[in-house]
């Protein structure tokens, strides 16, 4: 049994806030849920499935279902960090295909900016995490974890800081058209390289922003999708793949996208060359390079050359990516970038991206996320979406 064509994304909403000092996290979840329902033309009473991850306050879905007054018969709180929401879309399609729900709501929200979060701070470790005693003493943080991936990629494949900078440059070209983007200024390769080094070899502009906000998507069975007054965006393939340290036999320059990608392409029955737009999780510039390689948009090791010279810029490059400005320029709500990747892919397929970055006749898009850290352990998720 495949999920191909079994569920459609009928609602998508991105919270416009980037700093929410005056709101609670639960409130942000409810606001994005309301926004997505209005976008879809559905009401709260239509929702019979709810999906959330660790950013939702409380134990799994319990508090948020109660807070929002949902009446659902299916819940799922799979948490794989920033890729959770892509996995939720896939799991929602499975639940819809099995008749466990008809209309599934997925929400993400958080306010790390107001709470003073940064990518150079140690994270909190659970008391029983088996890996923590062997990692926490060494000061592993988000930035130096990804920096080690970048350093190894440069060592193995000759990737350069200039090539990585092109990822940020492309994102900034898109962000200039997004009125909500945190960073709207177009930047040059030189400006990226001149920004301070945070963790060798990554500069400040290689790192994503810290922002408040959130987003939500709603999935429904195709009959419902066709009855609504919105363009129909159908999930046709999905894959998910955790990847870790393999007992110390490291392959740090390869991500789980090397497995989630082929699984999604096989289910969808399409290949990388067919994809017209990609949303690629951009926690750091290196994250994009590694995932593009692993998804098969170029050969392993050629990602640096692939992203250089504006190849990811919509309108001029061969593979337009993150046309909202992505995590590097637009937002990274709850320090989890997966939801906004889905939302911009839906905008592109609906033809509702900003006219300056809209891909012409966009019929096939891919959304890719990695949650956790590429430098230690992470989970990749890939979605392939089609306009009908």
């Amino acid at each position, binding site marked *: 049994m495949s999920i191909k064509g079994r569920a459609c994304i009928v609602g998508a909403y991105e919270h416009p806030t980037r700093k929410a000092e005056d709101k609670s996290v639960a409130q942000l979840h409810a606001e994005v849920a309301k926004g997505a329902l209005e976008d879809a033309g559905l009401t709260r009473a239509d929702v019979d499935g709810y999906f959330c991850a660790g950013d939702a306050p409380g134990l799994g879905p319990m508090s948020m279902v109660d807070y929002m007054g949902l009446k659902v018969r299916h819940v799922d709180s799979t948490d794989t960090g920033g890729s959770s929401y892509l996995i939720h879309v896939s799991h929602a399609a499975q639940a819809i295909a099995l008749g466990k729900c008809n209309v599934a709501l997925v929400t993400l929200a958080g306010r790390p900016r107001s709470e003073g979060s940064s990518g150079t701070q140690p994270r909190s470790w659970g008391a029983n995490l088996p890996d923590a005693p062997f990692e926490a003493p060494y000061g592993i943080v988000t930035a130096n974890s990804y920096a080690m991936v970048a350093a190894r990629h440069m060592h193995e494949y000759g990737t350069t800081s200039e090539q990585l900078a092109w990822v940020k440059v492309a994102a900034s070209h898109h962000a200039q058209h997004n009125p909500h983007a945190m960073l709207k200024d177009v930047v040059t390769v030189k400006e990226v390289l001149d920004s301070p080094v945070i963790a*060798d070899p990554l500069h400040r502009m290689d790192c994503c922003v810290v922002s408040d906000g959130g987003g939500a998507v709603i999935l429904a069975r195709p009959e419902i999708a066709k009855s609504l007054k919105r363009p129909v965006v159908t999930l046709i393939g999905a894959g998910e793949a955790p990847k870790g340290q393999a007992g110390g036999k490291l392959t740090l320059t390869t991500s789980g996208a090397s497995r989630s990608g082929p699984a999604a392409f096989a289910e969808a029955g399409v290949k990388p060359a067919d994809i017209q737009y990609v949303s690629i999780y951009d926690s750091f510039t290196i994250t994009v390079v590694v995932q593009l390689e692993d998804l098969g948009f170029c050969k392993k090791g050629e990602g640096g050359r692939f992203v250089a010279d504006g190849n990811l810029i919509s309108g001029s490059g061969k593979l337009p990516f993150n046309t909202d400005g992505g995590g590097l320029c637009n937002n990274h709500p709850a320090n989890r970038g997966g939801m906004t990747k889905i939302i911009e892919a839906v905008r592109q397929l609906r033809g509702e991206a900003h006219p300056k970055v809209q891909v012409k006749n966009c019929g096939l898009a891919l959304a890719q996320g990695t949650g956790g850290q590429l430098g230690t352990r992470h989970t990749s998720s890939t979605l392939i979406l089609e306009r009908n």
Partner: protein
Amino acid sequence: MLLSKDRKIPAPSVNPENKPYFDAASQGKLLIRKCAACGEFHHYPRSICPHCFSDKTAWHDAKGVGIVYTCSVLRRGAPEPYCIAYVTLDEGVSMLTNIVDCDLDAVKIGMKVRVLFKPTDGGPPVPMFTPA
């Protein structure tokens, strides 16, 4: 030239499964885990082998030497810059660690390193590495 400085190192959380590793660290010894069923080393240590899932695993004294697999100096956001790295031990497995007591600007992938132990804040010492 960026000479490393000692920093306050968070104590590892010791549990019944990893206690022998940290007890050995207190004696200045680096242990790694080996599986008698598949013959493979692994790190971080587990009672059940992550390669073949056998429970025939045992502690072995590591030689304590290896090469830097990858590294990064965190230069912002911490009280002092420090170098995080994965070191691939002679036994073939890589471990997360810090490269210390050296010029941090000179740490490179492929560099030969040897183990030493640094005290933690209220816990057992942890293995780190310095250029050999």
